[in-house]
């Protein structure tokens, strides 16, 4: 089913999403990938504040290519989410509501999604030029020294994603294999 939703989104929308739904997101996404997650993890261990509000928000696992003049961002597709599996359950327990990436997640992440009523979306991997067209602004808000891995606040308009793991724990990658595998 095609949906057009605002991010951050309310609980009702979150819980209504189902694995396989095609969703166009409009609103705010925060970027963070490997190095930024490591720093957030260390900040939490040290009892420090995180550089962005987690409650209700969404993280996009993405490190863009540099923007050409006059453009908000360069190529901007998702990176492999499983590298953030080590950090994601804690962030979800702290109020993060959703993640946008690509590829499989661990069982620990799936359980944290169910426990907290969250969602894991995939954007199409390797379509960074196309996806950049749905990003209207980008601002580095933390860890600038990390370059492409800095935390950015993005404004997105009709950003296309697909629900891979919904709040019940249904997983589109598993459903797809069941439906399309012709292996004995």
């Amino acid at each position, binding site marked *: 089913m095609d949906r057009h939703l605002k991010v951050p989104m309310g609980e009702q929308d979150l819980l209504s999403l189902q694995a396989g739904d095609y969703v166009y997101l409009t609103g705010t996404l925060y970027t963070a990938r490997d190095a930024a997650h490591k720093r957030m993890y260390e900040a939490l261990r040290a009892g420090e504040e995180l550089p962005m509000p987690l409650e209700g928000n969404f993280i996009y696992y993405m490190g863009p290519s540099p923007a*050409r003049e006059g453009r908000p961002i360069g190529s901007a597709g998702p990176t492999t989410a*499983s590298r953030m599996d080590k950090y994601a359950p804690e962030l979800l327990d702290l109020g993060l509501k959703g993640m946008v990436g*690509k590829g499989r997640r661990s069982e620990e992440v799936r359980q944290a999604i169910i426990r907290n009523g969250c969602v894991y979306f995939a954007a199409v*991997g390797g379509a960074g030029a196309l996806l950049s067209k749905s990003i209207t602004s980008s601002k580095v808000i933390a860890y600038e020294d990390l370059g492409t891995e800095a935390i950015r606040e993005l404004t997105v308009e009709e950003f296309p994603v697909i629900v891979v793991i919904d709040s019940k724990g249904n997983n589109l990658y598993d459903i797809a294999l069941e439906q399309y595998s012709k292996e004995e």
Partner: protein
Amino acid sequence: MKTIQTSAVTDAVAAMCIEANHFLTDDMKAALNHAEESEIAPLGKQVLGQLKQNLEIAGEDHIPICQDTGMAVIFVEIGQEVHFEGGSLEDAIHEGVRRGYTEGFLRKSVVRDPLDRVNTGDNTPAVIHYQIVPGDEVKITIAPKGFGSENMSRIFMLKPADGAEGVKNAILTAVRDAGPNACPPMVVGVGIGGTFEKAALLAKKALTRPVDQKASDPYYSAMEEELLERINRSGIGPGGLGGSTTALAVNIETYPTHIAGLPVAVNICCHVNRHAVRVL
């Protein structure tokens, strides 16, 4: 004897880094078009359509096809009659990468040490493979390699008794494990034989062979065909969202090996299987 200025190498490398990251070769474009026509899953078809659209936008608006513009893998075939002038060839290649990635607005994805992980800021160093060949030309192939798929690559040191079935199972295992993480539809580069490092290098090189060109040995071209069909029956599909297009090609390269061994390397590449070639 032919003299080549190393500055010409720098210029070529810089231009090729930019070219490879914005335009796929014709064989890759044709393979994606064909996949879109033949894909059975509606969502899979939609994903393939988006990939096609992505390529158009990349070319027209000059935005890299993928934000992971890769670590620059460079094959240099040097004719033995060639003499280089103007400084170190190796430095000239790294300088070309530095310029290409900086001037071309490409992402800098290289860290100076695998554990301290400080970004070098200019995507150097490149990974360079030299080969000395007959003649008086220098052929440079640039293959920027993204790590979503690189991370899903594998090497298997099989036993001779494992035979062809063992080889096929190893390749299918690597592809199944890669699944949605490697941005399917993938191109599967396979190196069989040689030593540990030779097999890996063959697999990497196999990815630079056009996807519409079969292995020259009919035994291995039949194996490529069989594996492609079996991979596409896995159901993984475009983006891992299900369907009949999981791989666009399986390219196998082989080399003689030791009586005790059967190395098999599987280098997986996403659908952004980039390369540019130039002869100086």
